């Protein structure tokens, strides 16, 4: 059975059902216990599971992620939360040095999932809004996914928990109680390494993920008015990346925009644009246009943040440029 769920509740349901299914799955992090987490995602979970299966920890991100590594080695399936994605910077070494290389070096699997509420649009400034996913896609041994709807939030999280590798699950925190869509009650997996076709289109393709999918949709609607038919592809699994799927989608329209919330410069968009021109050069009717945030810290003020983030206008102008190419 499916019903509409908020993005946050889809995550909560995945956590609960996976913990019920497998007692090796457990959740921990700052304030996630009785309090239910600062975003309420884990609200009430502690009462529905076994003792210690949901647990609040000290304010120590590096110790938290270290626990995940050790517990995973011992056979559990830890699901730590980093309260705000920005705070992963204080635990960077546990992720990129310890976790990422462990299986390659000694052959021991690390089945763990880090929940990382990420991204901006909430006017809370540079220490609570960043999108750092591109740091981690550069690190072999990690997997990186970014759900943009409730259905994927649940399905990708289930896949992440069942995956035998460290998965960085970049939740889009501003979507928690804004994005709502049909979610099956039962457990299901959304496989990694596969793009999602948000909508089809003939003239150009917008490759995007996470928080920017709604903007892409808005742009597609606007473009339709101008008789431009834009496909939207939700990349959602950045590592592993669905290279074939992306190339194939591109070939259909020969024109593309790559849109993400992270800053453009040295952002993940560079990977997609480079891949496309490397692998589908002959099909390029125009350059791939990257759109991301500008190269400043994330400003707090709504006015400034709006100017910092990608805008509808930018997408429309890019589409225009592509179509006139």
């Amino acid at each position, binding site marked *: 059975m499916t019903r509409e769920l908020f993005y946050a509740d889809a995550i909560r349901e995945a956590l609960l059902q996976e913990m019920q299914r497998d007692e090796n799955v457990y959740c921990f992090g700052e304030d996630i216990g009785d309090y239910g987490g600062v975003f309420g995602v884990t609200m009430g979970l502690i009462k529905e599971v076994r003792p210690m299966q949901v647990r609040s920890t000290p304010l120590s991100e590096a110790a938290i992620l270290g626990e995940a590594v050790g517990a995973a080695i011992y056979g559990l399936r830890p699901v730590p939360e980093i309260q705000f994605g920005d705070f992963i910077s204080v635990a960077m070494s546990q992720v990129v040095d310890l976790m990422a290389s462990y299986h390659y070096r000694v052959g021991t699997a690390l089945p763990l999932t880090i929940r990382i509420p990420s991204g901006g649009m909430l*006017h809370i400034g540079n220490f609570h809004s960043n999108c750092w996913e591109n740091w981690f896609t550069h690190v072999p041994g990690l997997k990186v996914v970014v759900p943009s709807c409730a259905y994927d939030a649940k399905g990708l999280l289930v896949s992440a928990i069942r995956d035998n590798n460290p998965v960085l699950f970049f939740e889009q925190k501003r979507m928690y109680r804004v994005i709502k869509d049909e979610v099956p009650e039962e457990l299901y997996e959304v496989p990694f390494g596969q793009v999602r076709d948000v909508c089809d289109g003939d003239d150009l393709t917008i490759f995007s993920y996470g928080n920017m999918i709604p903007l892409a949709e808005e742009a597609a609607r606007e473009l339709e008015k101008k008789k431009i038919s834009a496909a939207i592809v939700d990349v959602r699994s950045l590592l592993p990346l669905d290279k074939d799927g992306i190339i194939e989608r591109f070939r259909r329209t020969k024109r593309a925009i790559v849109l993400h919330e992270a800053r453009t410069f040295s952002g993940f968009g560079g990977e997609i644009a480079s891949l496309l021109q490397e692998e589908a050069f002959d099909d390029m009717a125009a350059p791939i246009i990257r759109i991301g945030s*500008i190269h400043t810290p994330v400003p707090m003020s709504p006015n400034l943040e709006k100017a910092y983030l990608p805008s509808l206008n930018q997408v429309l102008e890019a589409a225009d440029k592509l179509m006139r190419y």
Partner: protein
Amino acid sequence: MLTKEDKLKMYHYLVLTRTFEDWIFYICHNQDQKNPMVIGKGYLSTGQEAISVGASYAMQENDWMAPSHRDVGAHLLRGMSMKDLLLQYMGREGSPTKGRDGNVHLGKSELKSLAFISHMGAMTAPANGVAFAMKYKGEKNAVISFYGDGAAQQGIVHEALNYAAVQKLPVVFVINNNRWAISTPVSTQTSVENLADRAVGYGMPSSICEGNNVYEVYDHVASALDRARAGEGPSMVECKSMRMSGHGTYDMAKYVPEEEFEEWKKKDPIKWAERILKEEGLADDAYFEKVKADIKEQLNKDIAEAVKHEQVRPGPQELADVYAE
């Protein structure tokens, strides 16, 4: 020795802080959420103002401080005006961070305060840097490094404490132990009763004080600063207090036992100061009422002034100001 004037001035700053923050609380709960006056949430020091006021009052002109997120008292004492802080909260033109950051994320080199970042405990490291520079230049100044009971569990704080101790830097670590870190009681953060016990592990002296007695806080911090200025190295002052609000203005702190609030209400720092001032015959109720009324009047003036300021607008400076010339 504190003179009458000193004591009354400290009282003034306690009331100033309380009055300002009470308004922040009020407005956060009574503003048009679509078109808010204050952007985001407030992070208040209500009930623990004596730490920030008492400690910063002990600073000499050329001392520096690294405030934490509940140090409005120290900001005011070191020269921020209520209007500055209002503009900061409102993200308007003239705000100390130009609307680029909000609420308590501030500091100003001209006022000899480091600009707080959210990552808990992070500021203890640059505070050492200021202290080192003082030493390098042969100056006899010192630095106050503020952090909380939750922040104390961050790795960086350990590094900073040890680093300051072994290099005999002129720093005073002032711990605001307000018993809670968001929803997490200090007993979940650590198994020690007194965070000051950690000083032993760095070969550093420490003391514990009634954090709600502003004059006691002053005494402890003043001697520690003297010691630092004399080249005898860092020390630690743990101030026992209680966060009498939620973590932020959105948080009703339902997780705090009612008795705990009741118990600490009796130790309210403003009442405590009033008791002392009366006992010592330095002031009476009429005086206290006058201080409060004057400050309220001032606040109303400042609000009226602040709202005249424009919302910040983005412009080319957003990109230009990322880098210094």
